[in-house]
């Protein structure tokens, strides 16, 4: 094949660390996994039922590019009641194919070649490639465990250059489970404003915070709505990953450009999913509460078992992951995860899949039943004990 056949930019993208690990796991039939980044709950039946009903009624056509008006109105009312944010559903909102599409659109709508995008890591895998594909320059901020993986004003200030345009805010965080509270965000605001940055705030896990700490959107702070693209979706809160539905809200000029790209590439988000999502927003609050309770119970359970193993782990307050430190064993995260998989047949994702600074950590997902967690963590405990006795 010709050397110049493929796009250099795409070929140059790093393969996802998750993908690499997946290929190893896929060969093992009997491995048990704590590696999944999606809820174990089924989508609540009343939501599925609305999807089915919409199909029965023949709602099988495109919706408007920005999404069903009904759905956007429900999103507006959701953001009003949870964050006291006012978004006009007509011009400041776009329904997308998952939060991922919204991230991609935001980058493509904003970045000119050479613009720098600040990406705090460890964080979700798609920020870096979407920046690169949009000809931006990803600049990583290495979050620290001693700060509970929160972004500090010093770290932010130090990363800013005259070329910085965007700050990605990945909270509640996958893979660390970290959250940013209101006072943490408030310290960042003057810096963001002074340097005239746009914030791409990925709030897909916003409903999953624990210990009575409610998520605060950075867009809700004074002066921030006008410079924030708020990204959210239905995957985590309503256990709707396979429906592929998310949304972006932000200033009209940015949403207009994002909608233009969306219109050419996607046309509209899946119609069935949009009808189901209307039901989710209208009547799904009890489901969220039920799932949040269950996650919280598992979170405490996992932290307790890790503490018994003596694996240091900061207490995560969001999402459904814990991020224990394995530096004591003198292995890389990759080595640890691969050996654990081979010897104990447990799949846990190495922290490095979420950025180089995830080295020395593992991401354990607790989107599993207590019984599954017990079994898998039992094997991890055996493995850890064996390593220590060597």
């Amino acid at each position, binding site marked *: 094949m010709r050397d110049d056949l493929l796009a250099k930019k795409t070929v140059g993208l790093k393969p996802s660390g*998750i993908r690499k690990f*997946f290929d190893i*796991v896929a060969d093992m039939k009997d491995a048990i996994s704590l590696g999944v*980044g999606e809820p174990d709950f089924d989508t609540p039946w009343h939501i599925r039922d609305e999807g089915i009903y919409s199909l029965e009624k023949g709602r099988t056509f495109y919706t408007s590019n920005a999404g069903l008006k009904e759905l956007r109105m429900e999103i507006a009312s959701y953001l009003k009641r949870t964050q006291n944010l006012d978004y006009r559903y007509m011009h400041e909102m776009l329904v997308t194919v998952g939060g991922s599409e919204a991230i991609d659109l935001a980058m493509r709508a904003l970045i000119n070649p050479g613009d720098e995008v600040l990406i705090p890591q460890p964080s979700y895998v798609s920020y870096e490639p979407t920046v690169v594909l949009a000809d931006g320059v990803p600049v990583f901020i290495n979050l620290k465990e001693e700060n509970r993986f929160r972004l500090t004003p010093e770290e932010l200030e130090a990363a800013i250059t005259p070329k910085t345009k965007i700050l990605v805010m990945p909270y509640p965080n996958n893979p660390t489970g970290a959250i940013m509270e209101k006072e943490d965000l408030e310290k960042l605001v003057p810096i963001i404003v002074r340097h005239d940055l746009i914030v791409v705030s990925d709030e897909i896990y916003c409903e999953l915070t624990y210990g009575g700490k409610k998520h605060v959107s950075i867009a809700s702070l004074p002066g921030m709505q006008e410079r924030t693209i708020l990204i959210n979706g239905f995957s985590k809160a309503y256990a709707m990953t396979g429906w592929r539905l998310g949304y972006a809200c932000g200033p009209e000029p940015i949403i207009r450009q994002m909608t233009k790209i969306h219109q050419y590439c996607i046309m509209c988000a899946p119609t069935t999913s949009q009808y189901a999502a209307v039901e989710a927003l209208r009547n799904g609050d009890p489901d969220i509460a039920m799932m949040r*309770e269950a996650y919280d*119970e598992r979170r*405490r359970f996992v932290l307790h078992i890790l503490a018994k193993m003596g694996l240091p782990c900061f207490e995560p307050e969001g999402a459904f992951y814990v991020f224990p430190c394995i530096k004591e064993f003198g292995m890389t995260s990759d080595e640890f995860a691969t050996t654990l998989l081979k010897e104990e047949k447990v799949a846990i994702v190495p922290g490095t899949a979420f950025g180089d600074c995830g080295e020395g950590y593992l991401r354990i997902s607790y989107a599993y039943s207590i019984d599954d967690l017990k079994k898998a963590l039992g094997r991890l405990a055996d493995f850890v004990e064996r390593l220590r006795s060597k």
Partner: protein
Amino acid sequence: MNTLKERILTIIEKNSRIDTAELAVMLGTEESEILDALQELENDGIICGYHTMINWDKTGIEKVTALIEVRVTPKRGQGFEDIAERIYKYPEVNTVYLMSGGYDLMVILEGKTLKDVAGFVTNKLSTLDTVIGTTTHFILKKYKDHGTIMAKKREDIREIVTP
């Protein structure tokens, strides 16, 4: 009802065999608190028993379950209490509900054979002087019982590793 008790009930309703130490960890409290709460719930008659969900169909042991609609004449001053008590005292009677609508009491009965059930209805239930009529339905198959789907075990069909 405090929230701790409510959480305990929600969890043990699904799994009454859960370890109390584990329950304490999950709910972020001490085991002694859990034990005290359970004791109180038992004393207050809120927890009335710890039963096991059994799919008898799979055991090969013959059992029939009947759902019987009973119409009765309520007694002056007693209402339905008296007749309900007469019926629920039979050990073969599993469940007795007072109903709104077309009949008064719903009685769920378990017997070894159809004959057993028929015998109970004709000899014991129908002969009670306040009972004015019965309609017996036999349960052919249980798909879901007490919120548990009997037919198949839930499988994890998610991809094994995802971001």
